[in-house]
């Protein structure tokens, strides 16, 4: 059965042009020349996709999207917005309102076909193949969505259980942790794995990407690590094996950065490998800070990635602090940093960029200043410093922090 495309434009020539271009590709093409009749047509006979002009008299494209998203029959119909060249604002607003993609006028007809095919290719599997949808039996109904939300909550609960509730207590060391999630499922994680009487595996990481896929990847990495760390000794070999596993099983845009290391409580060493993660700090008693950067690439994107292992010695009173970029990328009045609507800017920004973000230097300074505190008091001091800097206790990104301090 041919898929139906509703083309909406107040320019009749464009309507005709698109129709002539899309019909030979095997699509059924319906047309509407204003927003009002577009909504009517879409409700009467919901198409498989809508190509929607933004600039139309009476009812513009954004209003049409808003109406269609409110109607049960049409709310899941994919929409490609047709915007004027250079109108980035329109594109952002369109995607915000619920459009799936956009095309810029004047358009190349090959581009139109490519975009239509790409969007249909993305939505087709959801409609017809997705086993979850089929299992729900209700398609896209409210009930189905409720069930999905239920699954999401269950996933979040499982994920919370996976994270250690409190840092382990180890003779001779003081360990504290912090995890703040911006959404129900977090991409940041940490774990402590007892390896022997005197050795404990420590990992802190950040799965890039968001939502359920990122959460699943996090669980996969954590499980793999728990198994592998008993098989392999060198942290670099463990990261390599996790990398190869993730490369094989996931898309390239799903990846993680992480530091894994072994704390040896007799030798007082930390042997680690850093897979593309922001460099942990090692604060020494003589008030020196070095960063732990030995390792390799971010994890899970390239099969040719290689890793090396580094070691640092912890003298009495020394501190190691691991963190995720949610901490260093905390912005002033945090909205400035995370608000995509603020994203149009000039090149002068680099000059003030260091003032916009909390950054590694401030974190290092805060660590030095509070180095005499206990590990948990140090975590609190960092959180307070972040709140002072951003003017808010809310966070837009996940934040994780581990502080390890050797007893004096």
């Amino acid at each position, binding site marked *: 059965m041919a898929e139906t495309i509703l083309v909406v434009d107040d320019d009749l020539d464009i309507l005709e042009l698109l129709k002539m271009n899309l019909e030979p590709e095997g699509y059924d093409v319906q047309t509407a020349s204003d927003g009002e009749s577009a909504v009517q047509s879409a409700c009467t006979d919901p198409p498989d996709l809508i190509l929607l002009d933004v600039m139309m008299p009476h009812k513009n494209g954004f209003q049409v999207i808003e109406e269609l998203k409110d109607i049960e029959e049409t709310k899941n119909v994919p929409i490609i917005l047709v915007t004027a060249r250079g109108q980035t604002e329109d594109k952002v607003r369109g995607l915000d309102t619920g459009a799936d993609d956009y095309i810029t006028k004047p358009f190349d007809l090959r581009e139109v076909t490519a975009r239509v095919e790409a969007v249909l290719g993305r939505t087709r599997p959801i409609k017809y193949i997705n086993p979850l949808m089929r299992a729900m039996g209700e398609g896209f109904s409210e009930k189905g969505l409720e069930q999905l939300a239920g699954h999401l909550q269950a996933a979040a609960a499982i994920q919370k259980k996976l994270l250690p509730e409190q840092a382990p207590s180890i003779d001779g060391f003081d360990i504290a942790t912090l995890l703040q999630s911006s959404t129900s499922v977090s991409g940041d994680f940490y774990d402590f794995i007892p390896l022997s009487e005197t050795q404990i595996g420590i990992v802190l990481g950040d799965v890039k990407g*968001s939502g359920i896929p990122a959460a699943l990847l996090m669980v996969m990495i954590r499980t793999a690590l728990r198994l592998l760390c008993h098989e392999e000794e060198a942290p670099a070999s463990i990261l390599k094996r996790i990398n190869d596993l993730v490369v094989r099983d996931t898309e390239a*845009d799903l990846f993680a950065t992480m530091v894994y290391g072994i704390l040896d409580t007799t030798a007082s060493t930390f042997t680690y490998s850093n897979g593309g993660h922001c460099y942990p700090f090692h604060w020494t008693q003589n008030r020196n800070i070095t960063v732990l950067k030995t390792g390799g690439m*971010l994890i899970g994107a390239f099969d040719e990635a290689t890793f090396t292992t580094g070691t640092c010695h912890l003298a009495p009173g020394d501190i190691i602090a691991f963190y995720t970029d949610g901490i260093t990328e905390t912005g002033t009045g945090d909205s400035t940093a995370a608000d995509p609507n603020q994203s*149009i800017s000039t090149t002068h*920004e680099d000059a003030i960029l260091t003032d916009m973000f909390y950054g590694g230097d401030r974190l290092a300074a805060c660590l030095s200043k509070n180095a005499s505190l206990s590990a948990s008091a140090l975590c609190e001091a960092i959180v307070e410093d972040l709140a002072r800097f951003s003017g808010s206790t809310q966070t837009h990104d996940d934040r994780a922090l581990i502080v390890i301090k050797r007893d004096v």
Partner: protein
Amino acid sequence: MNFETTIETGNISTLHIAGKILGNATDIFRKEMELQLQTGRDKLVVDLTNVSLIDSSALGAIVTTLKCCQESGGKLVLLNPQKAVQEVLEVTQLATVIEIYDTEEAARAAFM
């Protein structure tokens, strides 16, 4: 974020981007690169001269596009990343797998 894509001789696409690639802007950035690939253009120069910041999903978009380009025999190179972006490329060690150039001439020459 604003951008303009120019197609040069030798079918090299250059994406000139200005601003921060964050949030929804990342989707637009991703789609623009996807479009180049969909229309068969797998020689991409991503001009980061005027980009002050990118987030991790923008990084993901670059990685995905890089791999797609490589699979079809093309290439993605970065032009002139600024301090904050350069730092992210170094920490993640993406700088070891992506070619980075200081000038547009050098970036284009990478495809010759």
